[in-house]
């Protein structure tokens, strides 16, 4: 075949190679436009806490926070919201525990009248305040320790 054909094929090959590269780059544009970056917290788990609403003045006299003082999530605090705090391993809980010894819906801390109370929600391993096993409607004082599985929560002001 003629010199011209060979030249055409040879240059055509280079053009095709570059066309291939540009089509790949076109596919990859999606990486730059339309991605999102999620920065995870230090333990690699995104802990969602409700936006801390300012509790009404009357409530702020009593305890306002639950702090995790022992267990793998030590250091996390959860505000005691008017609607109560549901604790367990289920993602729907207010405080999601990463504790194999906690139940899905383990316990509930809620407000009744002037004080705060804790209910055990039929958990497998029980909820303890001090040495006492929690049944229903156990009053909480400031500084009380609630033990759930390997996690210990403290009621704080």
């Amino acid at each position, binding site marked *: *075949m003629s010199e011209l*054909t*060979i*030249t055409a*094929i*040879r*240059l*055509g*090959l*280079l053009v*095709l*190679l*570059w*066309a*291939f*590269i540009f*089509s*790949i*780059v076109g*596919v*990859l544009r*999606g*990486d730059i436009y*339309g*991605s*999102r*970056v*999620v*920065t*995870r917290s230090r333990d*690699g788990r995104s802990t969602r806490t409700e936006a801390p609403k300012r509790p009404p003045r009357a409530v702020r006299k009593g305890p306002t926070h639950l702090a995790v003082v022992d267990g793998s999530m030590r250091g996390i605090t959860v505000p005691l919201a008017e609607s109560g705090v549901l604790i*367990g*391993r*289920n*993602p729907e809980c207010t405080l*999601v525990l990463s504790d*194999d*010894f*906690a*139940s*899905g819906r383990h316990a509930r801390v809620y407000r009744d009248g002037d004080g705060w109370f804790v209910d055990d929600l039929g*958990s*497998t*391993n029980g909820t303890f305040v001090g040495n006492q096993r929690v049944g229903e409607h156990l009053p909480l004082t400031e500084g009380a320790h609630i033990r759930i*599985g390997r996690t210990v929560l403290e009621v704080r002001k």
Partner: protein
Amino acid sequence: MSTVSTVTPRTRRGTELVLLIFAIAIVLVAYANVGIAIKNRLPADIVPMGVGFTVLVLAFHLVLRWRAPYADPVLLPIATLLNGLGLVMIHRLDLANGDTLGQGAAVRQLMWSALSIVVAAVLLIVIKDHRRLRRYTFTFALGGLVLLLLPLLPFIGRSVLGSRIWIGIGGFSFQPSEISKILVVIFFASYLVQTRDALSLVGRRILGFPLPRARDMGPIMIAWLASLAVLVFESDLGTSLLFFGIFVAMLYVATERRSWIAIGLILFLAGSYIAYLLFAHFQERVTLWINPFHPGMSDQIALGLMGMANGGLFGTGLGQGHPELTYFANSDFIIPSFGEELGLVGLTAIILLYVLLVERGLRAGLAARDGFGKLLATGLGFSIALQVFVVIGGVTRVIPLTGLTTPFMSAGGSSLLANWVIIALLLRVSDQARQPTIEQSGPTLGTDDTQVVKTR
């Protein structure tokens, strides 16, 4: 650590199919070009070759649709194109050496390509989740070390041109360090996920430079000694550099501490200098690096350089240059062969294909949700990058020439097999990374059984 994900997860398998057909078309054009330039007619077997190649790659594509629907869409087309171009160049060099298709290196390479693609597809089917590889952390470490040192054994080890990196059983020879590389990357990824906190947080500062504890230095010292053993006993600088480089890079990625890079570079330079003083073989390489036209020594680098100079900007065209004049033109020196026949423009395109391949590997690492997947994909991507750098750097006199294979292109079955396995693993990690999250978390989180406290 942060995770980058695409907002709307799409499988993009259709895009992959289009790119794949494009890649095959380019390979066939290149094949036709060789036939027309050398024999002045279209190669007679272009149809069966094209159909065979297409069927093989499309089968892999279907496996992806079946087993890894969210896998990265550009990895397979790039690998196919590089492999195909390598095949065409090896075939073209066979023709120049007077071999027909039946007796040359190309047909062996073609069989190895087919085998490698099948192995990669089987791997994708068998490994449904890359995290399962973590169960065999230390098995992989042992396997990697054994494979690395296998060529030193008396009966099966083979010494080829001063480097003892081959094993031969019967008439069949294999380069085990290629497979060993993958096993070692899996081991490093798994090991570093466990220990990175100790490596990155504990330690003291010396002269304002954070140094890890002596006991945490243990593994890096072992890796250094192993790579030095390869350098000393197998006389293979390339493999040694590759292993050590992968380890240092993965340590850096895992711990985010620059001190590892400094320590690694100092150790490597010290090791190289000692090797330079001890081995004549190595001194010759350095002399040829500084002065490739040194009289009385190998003119391989010089021939490669002159070949690339002959190619110029646009190349002589496939089948019209004389790359066969260089020794090992179809394996170690396949890059100068391409440089001569496709020119700077074509060679840049090939290097860019490697860049995109590596970018996709690192990107899979960036998007992976688990630490092991991140490190695995980063390590594999970096290993390709380092290998390409060492090879192309060697033939273009950036660093002393070392015998490493060009991924996907060089003639050689073990290298091809290893690279397709890397592609399979990267596809698996990227599939996990790009899957929509809802399927993974949501209902499964927190629904497993609560552990019961035994009171007795």
